[in-house]
């Protein structure tokens, strides 16, 4: 599959390449899933080291280990050559390591000032010295070219501004190592420029930066070192000067596990699902649409993959199709019938089902058994008069377990006892038990291992080929686009940016999503 011995970082040759923090043979596993496999990673003093990798490559895990959020299963971390152990983020912060998380970790009800000094309040003679805190906040915000009043509640700020506050907080602790996990995903172009100016400024002060971004070109502008992770293994290291975008994409994507191919040999049927000029309003920002006049037709027996970066509007689109998110314009048409105003339950009854993205939050009822979860969406199928029939339910459940190949001790096993992949199969099996015509899946491969992924895709391909199911699935891993999908739709900023057949290349897809423009 891939070289088992990770490529070692280039030996230190120049005095400028002074290593301040390094991870040695760090591994991390969650249960049986190995997120990181003996990774070696160096951070250079006063320079930017960028970590590249697809989703699930282990980038965030590695950063969480370096910043004390998680502890490695094995291996050690060296700070200035000395082994250190962080039992918490506070530990790491004390040693000068801060992290700006990908998801915001601000308290929305508190002001900018209170957020920046949360947990490190400046104490004066009369309790907290608010004036001093406000003064420092104002100075920080000015440095970041974002003159927000320190007393503004964070919830009143735009997402981009909140991100700036997050950055300001990390700056305020005078870190010598600053980890930025996707800091630009919510920023506008001008805000990114400001951030880059701040990064250059920090470098000149000797602060070392670890940078993660899906916007590869952007990252190449700022970085000095590039490290590529794939499937928990460090696959490549190079200095910025020696590489180009193509090198990164090649190393990121690598060869792929066979996730199947589009099923053939069956004729596509009528249009099963039709999205007609669909718009969805952004709940956070008025007058903005997360999905913007999007139209898409899917035929019976067809598999369509929706690819896009975070924030492209995939999840909103799919939740809207299922009926959780209201439309602000357009129609959702199921087999010729407008279902735009039907409830989730009514859409399920008509044969339109959603397998949600986050199975813990939206897919499973953790207090119920495997069997009860599997039968939850099709209770009516085993209800006679008022009462449910235990035998009939058993039939429904056993059939589902067999159909989607769930490995379990039995229907009465607790849902939490299953592996991630099997839990995902329960969510899929639950929706398939309603005998749908159209299945919409939001990132069905998220958080499950490669074998389970292949099985899930095989299941969907069979459904399309044998039952004439119309399948729409979204993914943020480009490799998965080129598996079972007949058609690949790339979404960017709420619109369809491009459409490809099954013969598209990874580079084409990534370019269309705005992730990377390969010349």
């Amino acid at each position, binding site marked *: 599959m891939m070289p088992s011995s990770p490529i070692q970082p280039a030996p230190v040759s120049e005095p400028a390449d002074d290593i301040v923090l390094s991870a040695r043979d760090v591994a991390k596993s969650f249960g*049986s899933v190995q*997120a990181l496999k003996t990774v070696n990673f160096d951070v250079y003093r006063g320079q930017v080291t960028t970590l590249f990798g697809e989703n*699930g490559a*282990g980038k*965030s895990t590695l950063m969480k280990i370096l910043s004390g959020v998680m502890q490695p299963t094995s291996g050690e971390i060296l700070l200035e050559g000395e082994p250190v152990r962080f039992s918490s983020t506070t530990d790491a912060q004390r040693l000068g390591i801060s992290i700006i998380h990908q998801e915001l970790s601000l308290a929305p009800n508190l002001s900018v000032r209170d957020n920046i000094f949360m947990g490190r309040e400046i104490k004066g003679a009369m309790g907290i010295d608010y004036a001093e805190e406000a003064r420092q906040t104002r100075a920080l915000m000015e440095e970041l070219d974002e003159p927000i009043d320190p007393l503004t509640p964070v919830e009143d700020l735009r997402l981009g501004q909140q991100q700036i506050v997050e950055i300001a907080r990390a700056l305020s602790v005078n870190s010598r190592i600053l980890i930025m996990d996707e800091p630009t995903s919510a920023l506008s172009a001008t805000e990114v420029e400001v951030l880059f100016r701040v990064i250059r400024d920090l470098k000149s002060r000797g602060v070392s930066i670890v940078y993660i971004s899906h916007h590869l070109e952007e990252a190449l502008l700022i970085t000095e070192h590039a490290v590529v992770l794939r499937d928990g293994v460090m696959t490549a290291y190079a200095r910025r000067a020696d590489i180009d975008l193509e090198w990164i994409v090649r190393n990121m994507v690598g060869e792929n596990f066979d996730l199947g191919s589009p099923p053939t040999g069956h004729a596509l049927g009528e249009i099963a699902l039709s999205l007609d000029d669909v718009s969805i309003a952004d709940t956070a920002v008025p007058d903005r649409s997360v999905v913007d006049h999007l139209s898409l037709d899917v035929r019976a027996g067809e598999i369509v993959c929706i690819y896009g970066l975070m924030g492209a509007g995939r999840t909103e689109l799919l939740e809207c199709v299922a009926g959780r998110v209201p439309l602000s314009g357009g129609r959702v048409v199921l087999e010729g019938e407008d279902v735009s105003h039907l409830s989730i*339950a009514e859409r399920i009854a008509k044969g339109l089902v959603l397998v949600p993205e986050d199975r813990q939050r939206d897919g499973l009822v953790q*207090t119920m058994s495997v069997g009860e979860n599997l039968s939850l969406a099709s209770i009516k199928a085993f209800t006679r008069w008022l009462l449910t029939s235990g035998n009939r339910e058993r039939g429904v459940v056993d059939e589902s377990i067999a159909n989607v190949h769930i490995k379990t001790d039995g229907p009465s096993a607790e849902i939490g006892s299953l592996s991630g992949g099997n839990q995902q199969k329960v969510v899929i099996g639950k929706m398939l038990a309603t005998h749908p015509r159209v299945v919409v899946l939001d990132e069905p491969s998220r958080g499950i*291992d490669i074998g389970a992924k292949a099985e899930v895709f095989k299941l969907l391909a069979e459904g399309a080929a044998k039952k004439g199911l119309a399948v729409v699935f979204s993914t943020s891993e480009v490799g998965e686009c080129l598996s079972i999908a007949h058609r690949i739709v790339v979404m960017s900023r709420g619109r369809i940016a491009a459409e490809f057949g099954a013969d598209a290349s990874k580079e084409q897809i990534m370019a269309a999503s705005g992730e990377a423009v390969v010349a």
Partner: protein
Amino acid sequence: MSKHSQAAERQRGGFDLGRLLLEGRAFFALIAIIIIFSSLSPVYFSTSNFLTMSSHVAIFGLLSIGMLLVILTGGIDLSVGSTLGLCGVVAGFLMQGVSFDMFGVTLYPPVWVVVILTCAVGAFIGAINGVLIAYFKVPAFVATLGLLYVARGVALLMTDGLTYNNLGGSAELGNTGFDWLGFNRLFGVPVGVLILAVVAIVALLALSRTPFGRWVYSTGGNARAAELSGVPVKRVQVSVYVLSGICAAIAGLVLSSQLTSAGPTAGTTYELTAIAGVVIGGAALTGGRGNVRGTLLGAFVIGFLSDGLVIIGVSSYWQTVFTGAVIVLAVLLNSIQYSGRKKRVDKVSEPGSPNPGAPANPSSPSSNADAARVTSEAESTAGKPATQH
């Protein structure tokens, strides 16, 4: 290794005394209470005393069953005590005859009409609760606290603070029979206890054998997932509050029949006893876990304990202390049971699978919330003392 094999053994249903005691704690507590009080007082262990105590339990039992439905969906209903009081007063009012000055007539509804109207009042109060909570997103605690005051206030207004003592009706008017709602006995068993038994059986069937029951459990277990599976979550929420209101109304009827009077302050703080019954019965206040059998046992534990304390002559102040201690103990055992369950799951899943919720690719952007949650979960479990034994 040994821990793991223990877990595996438990999976196979191997004998484990600690576990048995923990799971059947409400039952064992009830047995212990009966044994202790029987040894302290010769009066306690007799059929007549059990029947008397059971008729007290009937009130709490009815309230607890309604409360169980609400708690299973992850809500809480603080208004049941006041609803009980108001419904008793409404029944008393109807028994006095409703006069229409305009027509110069006074109507004396028969008892079955009184029962239906009273239950309708309870259902109405529940409906207000449910609509506020499900559709207007008012937190259950606040909405039902508001109704607690409103219902009590209305009861006091209706009676001017006085009590209806004449609930007997008269044969000429055709409205006798109110004493059959709780005061009388059928085959030697107080009618109130029989009513409790009927309500309990209906609730048991509804929860275990109907789609509605499944909806209640799934709404409490994970409302978002339930909704995406086609469960009418909002309707379920309204329904459980309506049913809780009806249970409170029935309890109000039984209580006024038992007391042969209906006062506006009846049922004050009963909502707390009802919650205690549900919790002692092993239900989780976070929703999704609990059953009718446990709740009934919980109601009996509280009832038999407080009556026992009365019988052996413990001061009512001490009764309060004991009851409180039992409730805290029950909640403590609940959290031990549920955290124990989580740990066991982790261990069982160890060899072939990641622990529940652990993302296999924790660095994908969208799985970070998940990863964070797992971390905090792990931290919180780690923070607790070893609770398995």
